[in-house]
Every structure is written in C-alpha cells, then in structure tokens.
C-alpha cells in the first residue's frame, strides 16, 4: 500500500507521504490509547479525588451500640455506629439491593434491611438476603478521631 507511489524513497511522492502520515497517525493513536490505559492502571486508588473532613459529632455523645445518621454535603445519608472497643464506622444507609434504608441491630450484631431481609456484618459485608446473593457490601466512609471529635472523610467531586 505504502510503497505503491514511493519508488524514490519514503515520502518522496504525495501518495507515499499520505501513506506514511496515515501509518504514523494510526500507530500514534494506538500508542496513546495504550498509554492512557497504562496510566490508569498505574495510578494508586483514589488518585485525583480530593477528600474533605466533615465534622459528624463527639465520640463521647455516641454510646456503644448506638447508631445515628448524618448526611454528606451531596445529600447521601450515612449511619454513624459505635461498635464498641473504640471502633466507630460510617456506612451508607441505602441498601445496595433496591434502595431501602438499613439500620443497626445491636442485639443481632448486624445492619439489617427490612424490605427483603438483607443483612450486613460489622464490616458492611453482606451476610444474608439478596445482598449476599449479589455480593454487594454497604458503602463506607473513612472516619478520623481528632481530640474526641469524629470526622468523616468525604470525597469532593
């Protein structure tokens, strides 16, 4: 294809030049696509997403076993739950199955969704009902404790 009109060396005719231009452009596009994939592959998780600390209350105001909701600036509701042993977690209160609200059951040591009996353990991992079948955990926000104050790390988009 390329060497048809190219008897006098690379790029010496219009056809030869166009052939090389097409080849270089095509290969360049391939290389750029590949490079994009490789960059995405190599970037550590969370790269480029910024986080903001959101004050969600005092640790002392959250007795062991209790749970109370807070909302992020983007309007998502999370359950702040004190699991005891200084472990506090924040899970999204929306069931990943069909969107009902889950709540913490201290007696059963689990998060429970009353709609279809979905249940999640302390780590938010599905242990019963449709979420277990679909292996869909609860979404979680990281928390920080600073001088007795609780902060959720909320991604800024």
């Amino acid at each position, binding site marked *: 294809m*390329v*060497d048809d009109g190219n008897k006098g060396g*690379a790029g010496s005719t219009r056809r030869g030049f166009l052939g090389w231009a097409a*080849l270089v452009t095509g*290969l360049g596009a*391939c290389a750029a696509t590949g490079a994009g*994939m*490789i960059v*995405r*592959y*190599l*970037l550590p998780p969370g790269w480029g997403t910024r986080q903001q600390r959101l004050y969600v209350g005092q640790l002392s105001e959250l007795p062991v076993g209790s749970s109370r909701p807070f909302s992020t600036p983007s309007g998502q509701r999370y359950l702040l739950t004190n699991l005891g042993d200084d472990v506090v977690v924040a899970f999204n209160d929306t069931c990943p199955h069909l969107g009902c609200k889950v709540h913490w059951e201290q007696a059963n040591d689990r998060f429970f969704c009353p709609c279809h009996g979905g249940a999640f353990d302390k780590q938010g991992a599905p242990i019963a009902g449709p979420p277990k079948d679909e292996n869909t955990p609860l979404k979680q926000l990281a928390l920080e404790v600073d001088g007795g104050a609780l902060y959720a790390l909320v991604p800024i988009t």
Partner: protein
Amino acid sequence: MNEERGQGLGGWFKARVPLPATEMLTEMGSEPVPGHLKRWWWCLGGTAAILFVVQVVTGILLSFYYVPDPDAAYESVQHITEEVPFGWYLRSLHKWSSNGMVVAVILHVMRVFFTGAYRKPRELNWVIGSFILVTTMAFGFTGYSLVYEQLSYWGATVAGNLTEAAPLVGPALANFMRGGETVTANTLTRFHMLHIGLLPTVMFGLLIAHFVLIRAHGVSEFHFRRDERDSEGKGKTYPFFPDHFLTEVIIGVGLLITVTCVSLIFPAGLEEKANPLVTPEHIKPEWYFYWTFRWLKMVGLKMAVVTLGLAASVFIFWPFIDGAIRRRRPDSELSVGLGIVGVIILTVMTVWEAWVLAH
C-alpha cells in the same frame, strides 16, 4: 562552545555521544532482505520477537502489583484481575501473548528445520535458537506457577519430582530449584526471581546473539520458482527499511488485535487458590508440556527423564549431527524424514494427552 551553538541540538548531542548514529541507522535499515521474506510464513521469528516485547511490557506492569508470597500471591493476582483498572486486560494480554509466543517459536523452529536453514555456517545460531525455545518454555512454566492456583502449586510439585528423577544431579538440582525439599515460600520467590530477573536477562542475551548472527550471515536465501530474479539468476532483494519494517508493523498490529480479541472472549481467570494439603483430581500442565506428561505416563519417571534429556541433546546439536551425516552422504534428506516423524509423534502425544485430560 560557539561551534556547538551553531549546530543546534543535533550538534550538542553529537558532541556528547560521538557515535555515527545516522550512518549506523542507515546501515541497519538498508540491509538487503531476500524476496521470500514477503511471505508471512517466513516472518515467524519476528512474530515471536514482537510477542516477547508485549510480554516484557505487560510483565513489568503486572509486577507493579504482584506480591511473591504464598499468603498474598493469589490475592494480588485477584486484585490485578478484579480491581485495578485494566488489570484484567494486561493480565490477559500477558497470558495469551505468552501462548502465542510459544506457538510462534515452535513454528519458527519447524520452518528453520524443514528448510535446512540451520546448516553450515548457521549451526551455532540453531543452538542459540534452541536455548531460546527452552527459555521460552521456562518462562511459561515459572509464570504459571506465580499465579498460585491449585494447578500452579501442583504443577511445580510435579516438575520438582521430575527433576529429582534425573540421574546424578537430579535431587540436588530439584532442591536448589525449589529452595528446599518441597514447594514452599522459597520456591515462589525463586520462581519469581527466575521469571522477572534471570530468564529475561538470559533471553535478552540470547536474542542479541541470535540477531547479531542473523545479520552477520545475512538471512538464508531460498528461491521459489515464481520469485523474480535478476539477469544473473540471483533472487531479488529489498531493503529492510521501509519494506520489511512495514511487514513487521503489520504483523505487530495484527497480533495486538488478535490477542486483544482473544483476551476479550477468554479473559484470564482464576481457579481455586493453591492448597498444599489437597491435590486436585486432575492436574495438568500448560498445553505445550502435554507431550512430556504423556511420555511420562507411558514409560515411567526415570526412563522419561533420561530419554527426554537425550532427545533434547540431539535436538540442540542436530546441525552438527546432520553435518556429519551429509559429509558421508551429501544427498541425505534424513533430517526431513526425521522431522516429519518428530512432529507427528509430538502432535499425537499432545492431542492424546489433551483427549485423556478432557475425558
């Protein structure tokens, strides 16, 4: 200083790297390539080389996330496959282009063998090439063990015991390879080092020697009846650049498309995690070791190791054996007959083993 300024960037560079770069490139690019290389069948060595480059690139990328520890290896492969963006794609590319490389190397060996291209003065390049084949197989074996699935672990166990059965050096070699009496954490780090350190170094050395010798001898010439010839009856040649370069570019792009399609249809998956306490019911090696597996089942361990060693030596030193035969009987075409028998035996044993494993 002023002189340099006058010559721009090219001059600056030339002063610091005083090599005739342009002349060298022109020299390399204008190497005459025989007309028969326009046929795809004659570009299998280049095909294997391109797939090796794919292996190097994807391999380096995979090693960013792989952890060579029995407690973490399987999970890190799972992480690459299921969580890292495009990880599944890079891993599938690595897997399928390795299979493609084995196929290309085997076909290249067959092409060289049946056309007698290994004959004087190219005997040593055949020997180098046969070590490239062995290194390729070693890459496949060590790479598969790194995944740390059930078959990785038990494949390494069987290979260790095979090595142990070799006469004299067997047990010592096996223990050295495994880093102990059985497959342990030591084995995994050793295989990892072999796969990403020693074998690539050896392979680069062998490839450079292979290419240098090809260039020094020139590509062996073959004449087809339909090929154009000049007035002296010599075959037509064409320059490496751009003609043969473009052929290789087309092969490279074609291979990437093919391997991508195969990766999309059959992405590299994960079987059960390795469990040293439970041997799976059916253990099998990679398909290119099927024939050795069949032979092993047919003649027993000791006999298999000894005969395979003998066969490998005959294979590696075949150009010299063939040369000795042809000095006595110049018209001997023994190599072709022997080659056909060899290919049939290996194919039958591979298909046989595949059939047995499937039923």
